[in-house]
């Protein structure tokens, strides 16, 4: 106890130096809010490239041959699109962006526990993005082995970028993992050790719980990717055979860089390591968006989140189980078939806590006072798409159903609903909700609604048909579908339709970026706490909060984060830092 108090008082007593120069204020800033904005902008810019790459793919699939897209370009686009979206956009923006911005503010801390490490984190992230795009400059271009980077093809001719592209990719990922670890240590330490007085763990807003647990997952899952990457790199550079068996390709035995033959490695080992990271990665992305949506729904429906404790325990259950489901990505990969029973069972078990979360969001709407603000549109839209995505997971987790659906467009449709559209809705909702806190202005509602409906309709028009194509056995990662007897002509029409829809939806995303930029300069100025929210980040003395967040004393927390519509209270919300006595009748804060 003494140590912890020492921390707090030591820090509180310090006079904070506010940076003055442009460089220290915007580039080498250690303020968690600036770091968050750096993460936001960089990852959104990276995401723009990802969206453009997806259009390249869709143009080839919709109009094969018309745009002169070679198989090289097609497969490189697939790979880069997947990597960018999953790691460099979603992981970075949800943890680096929202995590950095919200954790200290919502917990009532002055900053992250280690601001310098935090700054280093975003710089390493920038470096990893530069390395990623630099792979377009090396001979052979970026790797085209799919985002899963499966050996042995990733290191063999016949796959684009097998010589230098893959090296750049692994280096970039390694740097990203370092960046993530630096950020992640900060988030976990801050959440565990530097909350405001009275902010017990069970009084933390759900979004903090979610980001915290997602970071824990990341810290334990990224090592597997790092190790797999190192071993793959060694196979490529010093001739080891971790993942490379004896291979006979194009009429010759394949040799490593030293001219001796590869021998005895296990390609399956890479798949296990990759998915031991890859599946928890889904939850690294999913949990923060659960959290954001929980906040949005509770605040804009003016009602406390249904079953807060149950939500927290469901999150913890998801975190724990997420580490023992990875091989459901490998039901047809050639592992020992008996494992299928185990992983199918664990996978469907994880559906239960996930379902609880959906029920509780829906039940929060029951007898609520729903304000259909733009953030609420996004949140409700998210629930719809997430229901679709979650139910799609029941197909793919159930082993014998997966056998006929794996590697088809059902899988593509499923993970784009879960990992594509749902995070876009959640994070755009989050940006709309917290934009006033960042800039002091609101985003344009009209543009917001257009973007919402465009994206939401896109989810249905693009990805629902994909699920059915998958039922029809249409395979993913195909360059075109010419000359296949079992696919009907209407497939080609459907592909054209999906392509057109996805280009429209892709372009609509630029509307969101435009909205951010426009609102930053021209948005309507608003007063403090425009949404009348209870959580601490809105209770700072100035909006946007200054460096150090709370100018004088750190706030003291007296109640849980969801005191909306408390009976007898004068307003329909009571902020977390209002003492219980101040609201006599409704003061019975839930614990």
């Amino acid at each position, binding site marked *: 106890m003494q140590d912890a108090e020492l921390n707090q008082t030591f820090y509180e007593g310090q006079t904070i130096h506010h940076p003055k120069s442009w460089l220290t204020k915007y580039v080498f800033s250690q303020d968690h809010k600036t770091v968050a904005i750096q993460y936001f902008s960089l990852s959104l810019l990276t995401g723009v490239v990802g969206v453009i790459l997806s259009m390249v793919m869709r143009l080839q699939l919709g109009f094969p041959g018309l745009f002169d897209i070679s198989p090289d370009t097609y497969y490189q686009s697939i790979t880069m699109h997947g990597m960018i979206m999953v790691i460099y956009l979603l992981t970075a923006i949800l943890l680096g962006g929202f995590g950095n911005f919200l954790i200290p503010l919502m917990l009532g801390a002055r900053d992250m526990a280690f601001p310098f490490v935090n700054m280093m984190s975003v710089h390493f992230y920038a470096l990893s993005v530069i390395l990623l795009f630099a792979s377009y400059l090396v001979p052979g271009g970026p790797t085209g082995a799919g985002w899963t980077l499966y050996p042995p093809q990733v290191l063999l001719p*016949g796959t684009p970028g097998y010589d230098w592209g893959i090296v750049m990719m692994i280096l970039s990922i390694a740097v990203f993992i370092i960046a993530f670890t630096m950020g992640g240590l900060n988030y976990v330490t801050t959440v565990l050790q530097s909350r405001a007085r009275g902010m017990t763990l069970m009084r933390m807003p759900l979004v903090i719980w979610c980001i915290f647990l997602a970071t824990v997952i990341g810290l334990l899952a990224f090592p597997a990717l790092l190790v797999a990457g190192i071993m793959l790199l060694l196979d490529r550079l010093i001739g080891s055979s971790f993942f490379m068996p004896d291979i006979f390709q194009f009429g010759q035995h394949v040799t490593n860089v030293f001219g001796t033959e590869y021998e005895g490695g296990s390609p399956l080992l890479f798949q296990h390591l990759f998915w031991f990271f890859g599946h928890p990665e889904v939850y690294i992305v999913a949990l923060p968006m659960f959290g954001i949506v929980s906040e949005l729904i509770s605040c804009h429906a003016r009602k406390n989140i249904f079953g807060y404790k149950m939500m927290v325990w469901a999150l913890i259950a998801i975190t724990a189980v997420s580490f023992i489901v990875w091989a459901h990505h490998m039901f047809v990969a050639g592992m020992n078939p008996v494992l299928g029973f185990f992983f199918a069972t664990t996978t469907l078990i994880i559906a239960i806590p996930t*379902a609880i979360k959906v029920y509780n969001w829906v039940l929060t709407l029951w007898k609520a006072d729903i304000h259909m603000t733009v953030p609420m549109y996004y949140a409700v839209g998210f629930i719809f798409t997430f229901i679709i995505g979650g139910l799609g997971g029941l197909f793919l987790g159930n082993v014998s159903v997966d056998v006929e659906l794996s590697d088809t467009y059902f899988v593509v449709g499923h993970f784009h609903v879960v990992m594509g559209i749902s995070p876009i809705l959640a994070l755009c909702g989050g940006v709309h909700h917290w934009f006033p806190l960042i800039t002091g202005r609101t985003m344009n509602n009209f543009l917001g609604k257009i973007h919402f409906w465009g994206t939401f*309709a896109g989810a249905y028009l693009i990805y629902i048909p994909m699920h059915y194509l998958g039922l029809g056995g249409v395979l993913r990662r195909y360059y075109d579908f010419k000359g296949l007897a079992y696919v009907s002509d209407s497939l080609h029409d459907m592909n054209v339709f999906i392509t057109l829809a996805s280009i429209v939806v892709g372009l609509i995303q630029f509307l969101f970026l435009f909205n951010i930029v426009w609102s930053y300069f021209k948005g309507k100025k608003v007063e403090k706490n425009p949404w009348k929210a209870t959580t601490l980040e809105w209770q700072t003395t100035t909006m946007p909060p200054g460096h150090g967040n709370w100018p004088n004393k750190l706030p003291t927390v007296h109640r849980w984060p969801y005191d909306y519509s408390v009976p007898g209270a004068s307003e329909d919300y009571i902020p977390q830092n209002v003492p219980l006595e101040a609201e006599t009748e409704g003061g019975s804060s839930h614990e």
Partner: protein
Amino acid sequence: MAASIVFALFTIMVVFFNYYSIENQFWFPELASNWGDMDTATLMTLIISGVVFVVLSLFICYCLIRFRHRENSKAEYQIGNNKVEGWLIALTTIGVIALLAPGLMVYSQLINEPEDSLRIEAIGEQWTWSFRLPGADNTFGKTNPKHFGIKNSFGLDPDDKYAQDDILIQSSTLHLPVNQPIALSLRSKDVLHDFYVPQFRVKMDLVPGQLTNLWFEPNVEGEYEILCAEYCGLQHTYMRGLVVVESEEKYKQWLSEQIIFANTSLNLPPDADKQEIVSGEMLSIRLGCTACHSIDGSNGIGPSWKGVAGEERTLSNGEKVIADHYYLEESIVSPNSKVLQDYPPIMPSYGLSHEELDQIVEYIETLNETNE
């Protein structure tokens, strides 16, 4: 208000899309094997999850209308309800078990192949298929990746007595008898592949360095495409084969026409008259050339071999070139230095001996002559 109606419309649209997709064949391909149970399991999941989706979605839409903000409206302060929560958990658990149990039952059938299965081995390589049967002794000969060579494209151990009568099918077309369980062992020469026949439902990866297995019982006669379902490089899309399911008699007839390992050139005595070890034609099949280059003039991924030798062709940089013996050899050794117009520069380089190169190029040239 309007918003929730739109939300509800989207939900209804999804339901009706089922009819649209059945109409337009975005639906299970026609079943031609014993794995109808898989379709049943999938369909059951579709129905259960469909009901859950519609109920939850419409409930949300109802809430959005019923509890929308009006003047002086206020939300109810309700912390949670353990009883409701408990019921929901119980219901979900029952639903999950209802889906999982049949799924696992089908799976246990899937991984236990019947005793009387016909054993066949399928071999995948970039980007074509070949097959092997155990032959009269019903035992597969030993294989080892070290034995792979242009002359021994199955990697069989030449000294193994069980290997001698193995039937080698150096073609991507496989014939199967109808109504007979087939147990496939899968082996890859180079990278990951996946054996998939949509009408049979099952699929399984081919992993270099290990064997994988799957079984099915084709029960409708006909021709079905074999597809590669695991990304395996630039020509992944075009890695196709054919399964011909036919009557027992026809199958026997086909089988009797296939060669056994002992009769392949590798096992001929060294002093035999035929020093021409493998013909150019055989080489081109074994190397998988014909996966991209047709020999009948039809257009493939690469230019057809028919009528190419000696002709003038246009390169991608606009230059003209005569496809003489030298050019053809160069195109095999360093394929992407002079690529023909309208073809992508994607062919891998083949490391062949001088003799082998000669044989293939001579074969290409004969294609020309026979057609004149």
